[in-house]
């Protein structure tokens, strides 16, 4: 029988030792993390809220559809254990959802959570490099109370999620930038070639050839690169 600690170590290894060249699928990973977190800590349900800086809307992944909607709704309303964690960067201690204090604090959240059979909640921040990028929300039920050990693991799991997210974001960013750079460099090359083609075809100076290319693209509201490529490939004569 493996202990939660050993299972946790396995998740770490999976993530840290996973093939660094293989792109990480953040949604798949975060969903799996939510499901495994629930099993691991013996919670009733578990949700991951992700709200990266600069992103308009948040995303939620959870072990159950009900928990997912609850976590996402709380984020949109800006009120609940997840938003508290994300905004303050502090852990949200275990809270009894049946207490009047909880109901007063989160009037929309608490009735919905109780309807789903959640009687207590706790959350841990997803700690990014410079700011908190989300929260891991753990729900307990009548027969599945959140233990101290469960909450201790909660932070480790939240850290895994944060690292996975940051890696995914960096990968995405560098891929986008590399694509843009290559496009900018090849465009320039094509435009210079097109100037040469046009200059030779019509016995023009390179500057005049460029003026014609640019004029044509502007008049027809087409991209200069596209026009240049057509000229180079002989599909357009100007």
């Amino acid at each position: 029988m493996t202990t939660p600690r050993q299972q946790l170590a396995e998740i770490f290894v999976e993530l840290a030792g996973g093939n660094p060249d293989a792109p990480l699928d953040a949604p798949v990973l975060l969903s799996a993390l939510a499901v495994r977190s629930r099993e691991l800590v013996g919670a009733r349900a578990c949700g991951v809220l992700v709200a990266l800086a600069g992103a308009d809307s948040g995303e939620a992944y959870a072990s159950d559809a009900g928990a997912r909607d609850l976590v996402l709704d709380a984020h949109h309303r800006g009120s609940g254990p997840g938003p508290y964690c994300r905004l303050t960067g502090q852990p949200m201690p275990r809270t009894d959802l049946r207490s009047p204090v909880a109901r007063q604090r989160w009037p929309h959240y608490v009735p919905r959570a109780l309807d789903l059979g959640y009687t207590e909640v706790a959350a841990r921040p997803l700690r990014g490099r410079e700011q908190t990028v989300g929260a891991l929300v753990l729900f307990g039920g009548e027969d599945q109370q959140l233990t101290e050990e469960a909450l201790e693991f909660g932070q480790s799991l939240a850290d895994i999620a944060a690292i996975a997210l940051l890696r995914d974001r960096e990968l995405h960013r560098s891929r986008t930038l590399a694509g843009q750079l290559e496009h900018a460099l090849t465009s320039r090359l094509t435009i210079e070639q097109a100037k040469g083609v046009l200059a030779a075809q019509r016995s023009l100076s390179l500057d005049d050839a460029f003026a014609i290319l640019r004029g044509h693209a502007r008049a027809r509201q087409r991209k200069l690169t596209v026009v240049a490529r057509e000229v180079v490939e002989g599909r357009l004569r100007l």
Partner: protein
Amino acid sequence: MTSGDGYADQAAAAWKRAAAARERAARAEDSALRHDAWAQAPGQELHEDMAAALRRTAACHRSSAQLQEAFARRAGRWAQGGGTPPRFMTGVAEACGTRSAALTLVDTAQSQLAVAASDELAGTAQDLEFMLGEGPTRDATTSRRPVVASRAVIETRWPCCGPALTALGVREVAAVPLSTSDSCLGALAVFDPRPGLVGTRAFADVVGALTRMVLLDPDADPELYGGTDHRDVVQQAAGMVSVHIGRPVDDALALIKARAFALSVPLETFARGIVAGDLSLTSEGPS
């Protein structure tokens, strides 16, 4: 107009970029410390890896700052009418213990798109690779591994390009790919570097710094602050020759490369002759 026009601004901008790089290094170090603390908890080995990765990032930012500062000093001296016109790659070459280094950016098919060279030798070496389609940079970007070759190896490994490189006086060449997590932007080639350079932490930091300066940093500039050559004239000449010979532009470019190499004329000089109308190419030979 004096030689220093605009270079005082260049120097100031480079000092600013250096300061920003130092700030980024400090932030990465801070984050590494936080992960160190988290790594103290049992089962938190991942944080050790994160801390190590952040320290590598910090080292790249520091290297970046040093290169910017070297460039700033050179631009500052030039602005005051001394020294030689500043080239960013001169500082990169110096950091590698040589005068000759070239940064080459390639497309996904490993064709050269642009080159920034520290001196004439490095530029000529990249032109040779561009003309002959083989050489250390191409091997480094294709294999995504460092390539190190000494004189004898240079001549056998690249039968066309190799002898031309050694004829320039190159005794050793090292080329290292500039890679992001899933793509290769190009390579840094250094000629007659400090012995044992490849494999050192400092060299890896220079390569990491260049990758950030060209692509990843918020103030990244693939033009390397004016030092990048796109071979515009060669591409213009290719367009003209393609019309003259009635062939696709790629064939025209291949013809220009082959002719320039056969005649031992620098590629750019040859292309300038075509563009100026002093030289016209047919499929048979220059006329």
